């Protein structure tokens, strides 16, 4: 795959960030890329620290790595020692590694703990023009700021700790323009589910996605994060939005954002990092935002979705090569070809995750939650993405709205998105979820089932015990 960098007069943000962070070309043709911000958590870092120890190496830039605990932490109580002894051991290991190497650890006691992709942005660590890596595939979230951000494996976490660099092959850039204006009750989650439905879960392999067009220009940073977060579900390891005044306004005054004269210098640099009008793209895709509606997945990958008022595919209407995968998904989900998604019964409702666990997500879910009570047959959880999100929600009284409606209000963490803590589906339970993956077994039960949708749609499903169109409750 030949690199297709733009000409100097028409480069993309991706080209500029890549070139600015290139340390050297490696003997194998790859690039040694400097990583500006490295985020770590308790699941994918301990083996990396052990490898570093075995090699007798220090952390090269300890000030450029930040840690938090999110995947395994219980959400009923974060009191130490954690009630789950394995979780306690994993958190202690992270604490020990951070202490040994002088890495800042945002633990619950710091008041800044939360899902790694929620706290990086809210602390102002995530900034335009950076390269950002984390041992977590949803690192693409940080692209919302105009950063080049991607998930890595544990051996690569070791590489970043030891050298602050990675060996990388340059992807191509696809520009995805979403024109028009979203209708009321249609959210960023619906935009990314629509994009993945259109381009497929393999469509982005080998690409970085640049999201553009009037829909993205009108989005808040939190909405942009929701879209960039799920780039990886479309196969693209990274996705970004060019930084603009919305980005700068979000960052201004945040703890790690530049202050005073440094802020002005930062602004000047950030403004130079956006894609230029004549930039070259390996591919361009245009979609109509005005035509997008609330979207719900029905299958076992995030590309298997329909509009809330649509029916599931009919097997006879599918091309031969797609039929087996659809049949497998329907069998697993226990859904019928051609049935409407509306009315699908649910057992669990989960609002949270790095995709949709931010304050704006909770506000939209609460708008719906105050319209009723959780259906008696439904277990409903709200898990804020961070302590900061929880504090803000509590200041606005959202926790009371959720509790009054029968939702459980929990402590921050990844929770039932991937169920590495005690929050799990049981048996064949069907979960309306604001998270990012509907894979088989993803939410903790090997036979559990997931319907992905926006937080407002999850709240509406919780009240009715089945999939409904949240627009009727907004």
């Amino acid at each position: 795959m030949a690199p297709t960098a733009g000409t100097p007069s028409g480069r993309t943000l991706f080209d500029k960030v890549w070139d600015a962070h290139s340390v050297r070309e490696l003997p194998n043709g790859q690039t040694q890329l400097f990583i500006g911000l490295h985020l770590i958590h308790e699941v994918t870092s301990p083996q990396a620290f052990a490898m570093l120890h075995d090699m007798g190496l220090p952390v090269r830039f300890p000030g450029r790595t930040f840690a938090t605990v999110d995947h395994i932490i219980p959400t009923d109580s974060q009191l130490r020692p954690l009630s789950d002894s394995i979780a306690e051991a994993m958190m202690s290991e992270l604490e020990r590694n951070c202490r040994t190497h002088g890495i800042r650890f945002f633990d619950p006691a710091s008041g800044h703990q939360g899902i790694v992709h929620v706290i990086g942005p809210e602390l102002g660590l995530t900034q335009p023009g950076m390269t950002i890596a984390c041992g977590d595939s949803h690192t693409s979230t940080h692209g919302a700021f105009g950063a080049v951000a991607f998930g890595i494996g544990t051996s690569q976490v070791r590489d970043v700790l030891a050298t602050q660099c990675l060996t990388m092959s340059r992807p191509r850039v696809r520009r995805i323009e979403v024109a028009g204006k979203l209708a009321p009750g249609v959210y960023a989650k619906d935009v990314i589910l629509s994009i993945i439905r259109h381009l497929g879960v393999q469509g982005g392999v080998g690409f970085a996605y640049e999201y553009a067009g009037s829909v993205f220009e009108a989005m808040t940073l939190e909405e942009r994060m929701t879209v960039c977060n799920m780039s990886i579900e479309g196969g693209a390891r990274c996705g970004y939005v060019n930084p603009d005044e919305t980005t700068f306004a979000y960052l201004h005054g945040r703890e790690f954002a530049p202050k005073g004269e440094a802020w002005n210098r930062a602004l000047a640099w950030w403004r130079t990092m956006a894609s230029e009008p004549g930039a070259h793209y390996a591919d361009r895709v245009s979609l109509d935002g005005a035509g997008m509606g609330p979207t719900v997945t029905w299958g076992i990958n995030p590309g298997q979705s329909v509009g809330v008022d649509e029916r599931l595919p009919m097997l006879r209407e599918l091309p031969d090569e797609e039929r087996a995968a659809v049949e497998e998904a329907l069998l697993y989900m226990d859904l019928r070809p051609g049935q409407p998604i509306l009315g699908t019964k649910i057992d669990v409702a989960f609002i949270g995750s790095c995709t949709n666990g931010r304050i704006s997500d909770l506000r939209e879910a609460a708008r719906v939650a105050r319209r009723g009570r959780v259906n008696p047959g439904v277990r409903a959880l709200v898990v804020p993405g961070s302590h900061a999100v929880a504090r803000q929600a509590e200041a606005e009284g959202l926790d009371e709205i959720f509790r009054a409606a029968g939702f459980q209000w929990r402590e921050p963490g990844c929770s039932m998105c991937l169920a590495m803590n005690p929050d799990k589906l049981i048996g064949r339970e069907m979960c309306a979820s604001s998270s990012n993956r509907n894979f088989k077994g993803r939410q903790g039960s090997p036979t559990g089932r997931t319907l992905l949708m926006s937080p407002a749609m999850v709240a509406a499903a919780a009240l009715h015990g089945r999939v409904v169109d949240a627009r009727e409750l907004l």
Partner: protein
Amino acid sequence: MSNAAAVERVVGRACVLRGDDIDTDRIIPARYLRAITFEGLGEHAFEDDRKQAKGDHPLDQERFAGSSILIVGYNFGCGSSREHAPQALRRWGFRAFVGGSFGEIFFGNCGANGLPCAAVSPEDLARLMDLVELDPQQEIVLDIEARTLTSRAGTMRVAIPEGARHQLLEGTWNATAVLLDAGPAIEAAAARLPYVAGFAAPPTHLPRS
């Protein structure tokens, strides 16, 4: 670099795992990530899929026992970045993956562990899956240097991106040493980025405009 680490070819029997978009949650369920090492992951590879297939999963089929090459469909290893996935498959006994295409992070994690991921054309993939299912005892040779896969039915071309191929052949797939070779060029690269010093000084490097 240690030539002992070089991976020039993988020779052995193969196992056919049909289906596209097989994600890393299926390869190793998240509950097995509750540990601070990769030890013991092998026996849990594809655990839930295997349980649901009641002994009929390819990894449990007697005819594929002891195979070292896993033949897969498209977008194998998509989803979560967990390196536990290739670690589990390696501990199960696989030393190489041949398929239609691979999730990018999975591909990188395999590379970082000296495990080749080779892509074949759609026609060759269909033919290879059929051939190996018909005759699972045959020896398969994946030649990284020649970019070929040879079975009893003959030789087909495979695609391995040059970066990964070079690392396998040179035994430099553990990238840390290669990256350290850059020496002070790393600090120099950091110094050119205005944010590394918190924008404390006027930027010394502006992209061409």
